[in-house]
């Protein structure tokens, strides 16, 4: 009994880990029935794996049996791996007991497709209902939408889940067709759109009637695998941008492909996962969501791929020196935000602080500006007089020289945000 549950957990956690989404944020569920758990708007990472990724949810598959054969997936039908399946009660017990010990923020439940889509979705629904209704569990639940499941099941699941997601898998339809001929982006778009419509509908009803239940309050997300197929960074980010816009997604995740098979259509086993590239994509994602950049400014036909040696914010600045130097004491917030070396927090502090007098270099440093980087792009009260205007390329060389040691020491896959 003991050993059987251990084995199942090992198999089904191992198979679930390639879904990189771990966020437990955006939940608003309160513990107002004196049950167990609530969600924290910003989410909590309870621990970190040795590869530095946050662990906030118990992320498991209900089963890794699957009738499909997607080439990029460890659970594909033709793969020779051990198979297992949890019972409904096992998932409920594990979730409750992990949660009570403060190991996790909640449950991330996905599944291989067993028998058919509805059969699988029904089981998932049973679990979330049991947690919410019988166990009075109010912790976070991220539930995978099973492509092809009926609208009724998806809609009912949305009443209990905080977030739902369904993965695009490959950034373009062509890429997907190459590796999973049975699938298409349309299978993903349909349920994404259906859940989105319901989120909007419930939201509107809520304005009129007070006791409308929550429906997927933390919104939807999706994931794309990067580097399995030959798409450019532009392809990837344009797809992401479209999905953010059309389905009001909360997050798009980019998962550097880790070779798991000898399939000749994909990078061979042992190839390093493209972690730096993944990092640059996330940086671009942040620039779009929090820094007011249009994706076309960062990636376009002249620049279809992101620079490897410098981050996308710096790349943009160097290509657009006509906007600089920015006068820290006068420029508007949006422009200050675009300065390399200034993050959201620092930009906010700057616009507050300058009301009390013109800001100097030492104050900027204390506020948290990475001055060595920012100095090429700003002027402030005591900026040194500059004899000549440097070209973008020269500035890039200065910054690289300056940060060389740091870059070399930093592991390739470390997520540095500007």
């Amino acid at each position, binding site marked *: 009994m003991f050993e059987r549950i251990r084995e199942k957990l090992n198999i089904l956690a191992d198979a679930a880990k*390639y879904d990189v989404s771990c966020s437990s944020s955006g939940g608003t569920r309160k*513990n107002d029935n004196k049950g167990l758990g609530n969600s924290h708007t910003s989410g909590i990472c309870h*621990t*970190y794996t040795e590869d530095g990724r946050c662990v906030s949810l118990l*992320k498991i598959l209900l089963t890794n049996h699957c009738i499909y054969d997607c080439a990029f997936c460890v659970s594909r039908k033709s793969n020779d791996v051990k198979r297992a399946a949890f019972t409904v009660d096992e998932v409920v017990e594990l979730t409750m007991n992990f949660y009570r*010990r403060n190991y996790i923020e909640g449950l991330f439940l996905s599944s291989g497709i067993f028998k058919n889509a509805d059969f699988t979705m029904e089981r998932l629904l049973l679990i979330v209902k049991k947690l919410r209704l019988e166990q009075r569990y109010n912790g976070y639940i991220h539930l995978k939408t099973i492509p092809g499941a009926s609208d009724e099941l998806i809609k009912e699941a949305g009443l209990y889940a905080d977030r739902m997601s369904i993965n695009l898998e490959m950034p373009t339809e062509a890429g997907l067709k190459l590796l999973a001929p049975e699938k298409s982006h349309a299978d993903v778009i349909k349920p994404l759109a259906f859940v989105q419509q319901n989120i909007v509908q419930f939201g509107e009803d809520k304005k009129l009637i007070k006791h409308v239940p929550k429906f997927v309050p933390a919104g939807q997300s999706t994931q794309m695998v990067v580097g399995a197929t030959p798409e450019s960074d532009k392809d990837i980010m344009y797809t992401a941008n479209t999905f953010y816009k059309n389905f009001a997604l909360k997050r798009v995740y980019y998962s550097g492909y*880790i070779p798991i098979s000898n399939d000749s259509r994909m990078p061979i086993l042992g190839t390093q996962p493209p972690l730096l590239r993944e990092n640059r994509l996330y940086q671009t994602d942040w620039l779009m969501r929090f820094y007011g950049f249009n994706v076309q400014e960062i990636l376009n036909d002249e620049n279809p791929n992101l620079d490897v040696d410098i981050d996308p914010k710096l790349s943009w600045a160097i290509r657009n020196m006509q906007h600089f130097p920015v006068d820290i004491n006068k420029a508007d917030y949006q422009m200050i935000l675009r300065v390399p070396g200034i993050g959201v927090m620092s930009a906010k502090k700057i616009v507050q602080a300058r009301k*009390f007098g013109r800001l100097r270099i030492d104050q900027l440093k204390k506020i948290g500006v990475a001055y060595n980087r920012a100095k090429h792009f700003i002027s402030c009260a005591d900026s040194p007089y500059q004899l000549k205007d440097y070209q973008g390329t020269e500035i890039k060389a200065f910054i690289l020289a300056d940060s060389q040691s740091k870059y070399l020491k930093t*592991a390739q896959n470390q997520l540095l945000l500007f």
Partner: protein
Amino acid sequence: MTYIFDGSLTGLLTSVFEWFERKPGKVTLKSAEIFQPEAFAESLEIIADQGKADRVWAGLQKKLQKDWLRKFYCSYLSELPDAYHHLFQFSCYIFQQQKGAENNYGNEHVIALSKYAKSVEREKHRMEAFIRFQQTADNIFYAGIDPDFNVLPLISNHFKNRYADQQWIIYDLKRKYGLHYNLDTVEEVSINFEKGSAQQNLTPALTDEKEQLYALLWKDYFKSANIVARKNTKLHLQHVPKRYWKYLTEKQLS
């Protein structure tokens, strides 16, 4: 001139009151615990006075935005000697300025407080994340901690709201007091540990029979979730500094 106070929040606020009473010019505030008399420096001992402290606090409430009251309190909970001084100077500064002066990030005390608050909030957040309860034989969920700052007052509500249907104790082993939630309210408690008994992690004799099973399953899970091809020890350590490992079930051997 040095003001010496008793280390309490009441004492700290009283010292601000006293300064405005006397206007003695430049003053350094120190807690009695670390104060070492110097031969030629003048000093004044501040007697904590609830009435005076309340007036100062009410004044701060009028002057400051709400998030700054929190920053003020967090800075105090850092228990750092320099923080006390900055809190004192910050208060004097705030009372002498127009409303809104807390946004002057060019001011050294404003910056200092926002930094202390950030550290304390980070520690609070870490405790909310890294505390691991063990279920005792009498069905109480116990966790022993020794945070860098005095964060129990800050985490109490979080745990009360979240773990409303289970009894729990979170014990600060360094400051020798804890919080006990009895399914209704949270009370301060102190525990007399038997000499030599493990306080951070309870021995199996004291825990529920299922405790070891779930600890083991959690450790298994932690191992399975790792992707070897992505190993990045530096990033891992940055997120979970070694000094927190002792809390983490998943980091315990065996």
